[in-house]
């Protein structure tokens, strides 16, 4: 086959077909076009201000590595004046995070950015290995997600930084849209699509500058710039609901590549139509949602258990937390957004501090502490009781006492 010329420069050999428009580009043009589109997203959404200090949530994976590389390039090219640093979370999963943290350490040198690593062990007294040993693999992603969100916030707070960017890409957003569509969760769908999530208070702002970037192009960008990234599969991640949504997205992309951005666009349009009653009634789950949807590096990999246990957990979390002021209003049409702010003044939760850990929370006890409570309560107990679950604690203790008595009687 004769080489195809680049659509852009008409000279060099095309090596890439862009999923969004099927344009055939050479390596050099592709890199510039990719960077320029991220730049346009940043400018179009007023994502940063000059001199802003920004922490890049870095996992060592392709998305966060590309994000760091592109932000560094754009910061220099367009003079954003950003003060960039890398923020990594060590979940404490042996054989998974250790290698990727080594990658992040190399990235810190390559991009000349300071790096902060924060571990679940030091933050919560529980590594994910220990959590899984306690509760099993099922449902552990909930813990990891809640812990990670707080960990990123705490890391940013520690560094005195108010803005954390994550490497979520268009495929991730499309997956989230599909998942929330499939479980009829419009409020969550609406939050998942917005580029910025932040609370009304002085909390830390989150954003995803790669929201419109195809995963395919992110991988190709990393390949053609020969970026140093690490790929792995979380050893605890079950391929459940998100896994299916992911497969569906990839299958659709194969048949019709523009599907992914179209789903993102549909998600945004639907978000704009979500009536405020829906957002405010029933489930209130601002930061819970964010914790789950914003799961940093392994977000795209984490499956979910679709069982009742998980639903119960989500429900409990949802009831405990109400912070929808965080992330809805951005995409709403004018008329509605006025309405929103009025309602919010009335309904707004006062943001206080968790009584346990002092972390910013709209509840007396923050979600992480709630989860920790459950973990700590079970810590000294035997494996038998752990597997029974919390509701059955009473009866299983009784059962154990009965067994003890039986043994005594027997002897």
């Amino acid at each position, binding site marked *: 086959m004769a080489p195809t010329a680049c659509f852009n420069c008409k000279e060099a050999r095309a090596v890439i077909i862009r999923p969004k428009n099927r344009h055939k580009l050479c390596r050099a043009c592709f890199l510039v076009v990719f960077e320029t589109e991220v730049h346009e997203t940043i400018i179009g959404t007023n994502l940063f201000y000059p001199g802003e200090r920004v922490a890049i949530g870095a*996992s060592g994976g392709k998305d966060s590595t590309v994000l760091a590389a592109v932000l560094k390039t754009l910061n220099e090219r367009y003079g954003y004046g950003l003060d960039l640093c890398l923020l990594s979370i060590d979940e404490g999963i042996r054989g998974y995070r250790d290698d990727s943290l080594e990658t992040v350490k190399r990235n810190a040198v390559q991009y000349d950015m300071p790096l902060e690593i924060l571990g679940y062990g030091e933050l919560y007294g529980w590594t994910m290995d220990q959590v899984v040993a306690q509760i099993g693999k099922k449902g552990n992603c909930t813990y990891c997600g809640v812990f990670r969100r707080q960990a990123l916030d705490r890391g940013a707070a520690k560094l005195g930084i108010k803005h954390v960017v994550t490497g979520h890409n268009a495929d991730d957003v499309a997956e989230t849209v599909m998942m929330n569509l499939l479980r009829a969760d419009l409020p969550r769908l609406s939050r998942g699509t917005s580029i910025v999530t932040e609370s009304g208070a002085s909390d830390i702002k989150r954003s995803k500058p790669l929201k419109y970037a195809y995963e395919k192009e992110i991988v190709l960008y990393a*390949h053609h710039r020969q970026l140093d990234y690490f790929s792995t599969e979380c050893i605890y991640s079950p391929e459940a609901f998100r896994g299916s949504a992911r497969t569906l997205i990839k299958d659709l992309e194969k048949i019709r590549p523009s599907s992914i951005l179209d789903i993102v666009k549909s998600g945004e349009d639907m978000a704009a139509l979500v009536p405020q009653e829906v957002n405010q009634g029933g489930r209130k789950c601002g930061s819970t949602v964010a914790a789950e949807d914003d799961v940093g590096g392994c977000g795209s990999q984490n499956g979910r258990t679709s069982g009742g246990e998980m639903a119960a957990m989500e429900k409990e979390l949802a009831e405990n937390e109400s912070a929808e002021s965080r992330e809805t209003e951005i995409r709403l049409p004018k008329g509605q957004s006025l309405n929103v702010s009025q309602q919010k003044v009335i309904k707004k939760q006062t943001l206080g501090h968790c009584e346990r850990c002092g972390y910013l929370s709209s509840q007396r006890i923050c979600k992480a502490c709630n989860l920790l409570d459950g973990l700590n309560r079970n810590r000294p107990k035997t494996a038998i009781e752990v597997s029974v679950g919390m509701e059955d604690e009473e009866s299983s203790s009784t059962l154990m006492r009965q067994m003890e008595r039986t043994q005594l009687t027997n002897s």
Partner: protein
Amino acid sequence: MSDGTKGAAGPSIPITVEFTGGLELLFGNERKHKVSLPACMDDGNPTNIAYLLPYLVDNLMQDQRKEMFIMEGNVRPGILVLINDADWELEGEETYELQPGDNIVFVSTLHGG
């Protein structure tokens, strides 16, 4: 390193196959593999990518989960194929006829960080 001429007489084509983005985990955690293929397939036509795919599964893949790489006879959606750094769609996908010294890269987009 494997040398798989399958005992066929006649000329062979040496190529390099790379697995990245997490795919290397399926291939003995080795990224680069030197492979030598017969110049012609059983039907007498020049060896192409369609021949290479099952060859890799049978000869290089160490993981049992074949479907992680090949699904329904084709490369699993989400895995990119680059022929000498170009998207294989630009080169005719499975019909591309391998040339000596070709570099074929399989990159997974499905793995996380």
